[in-house]
């Protein structure tokens, strides 16, 4: 279990959006996992099992608190709509903020597939939903991120508009 801790913690941070809550969540997960070790079948996917316990804990807490930040009124989206082109690069800080504005289920799907590297099938197992649902959530998350970040090709590749035009041979 010790070997899984860094990845488990990173997943918790991606869900919670802050380190303190994430560490509390990981602590609760380890306790639950230890108490239910008899239910874990040795030789099967320990990582997926731990991830499932963690995400169930997170969503259970979320339902209780009913304080998910989904940016319903669009304020966060509006604050991030300044094109990164003006800075010349896709800012990591803005990317992190944008990720945190995604609905939790989309953020979870995107992180499991895009960051942890799980297959759609494995991610669906962790999220306890159909494979099609995971694919849909990942696509919606990517689309939403693109919208929020106002990303263009120049932004992505760190070029200003004039350079991008020259590179493309435009004009």
């Amino acid at each position, binding site marked *: *279990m*010790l070997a899984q*801790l*860094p*990845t488990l*913690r*990173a997943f918790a*941070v*991606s869900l919670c959006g802050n380190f303190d809550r994430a*560490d509390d969540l*990981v*602590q609760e997960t*380890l*306790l639950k996992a*230890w108490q239910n070790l008899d239910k874990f079948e040795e030789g099967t996917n320990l990582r997926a099992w731990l991830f499932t316990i963690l995400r169930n804990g997170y969503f259970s807490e979320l339902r209780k608190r009913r304080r998910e930040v989904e940016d319903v009124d669009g304020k966060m989206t509006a604050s991030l709509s300044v*094109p990164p*082109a*003006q800075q010349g690069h*896709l800012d*990591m800080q803005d*990317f*992190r903020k944008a*990720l945190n504005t995604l609905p939790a289920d989309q953020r979870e799907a*995107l*992180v499991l597939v*895009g*960051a*942890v590297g799980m297959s759609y099938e494995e991610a669906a197992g962790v999220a306890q939903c159909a494979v099609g649902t995971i694919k849909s959530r990942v696509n919606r998350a*990517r689309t939403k*991120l*693109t919208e929020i970040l106002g*990303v*263009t*090709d*120049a932004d*992505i*590749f760190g070029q*200003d*508009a*004039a350079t*991008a*035009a*020259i590179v*493309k041979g*435009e*004009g």
Partner: protein
Amino acid sequence: MNEDDELPAGDAKPKATPEDAAALPAQLGKKLRSLFADVESQPVPDRLRELLEALAAKEKKAE
């Protein structure tokens, strides 16, 4: 490039081509993995390691 050709204004955004649009998921994925790896590479807080050690010690005692 001809003399008559105008360079776009400094803050004008170039139009994304279909190829650029296809590259977007890969670039977003790269940023996402970088963000994730950054947290993964941090040292695990003592309280989490100590918890696992305490649980393992407790189980050993029970045996």
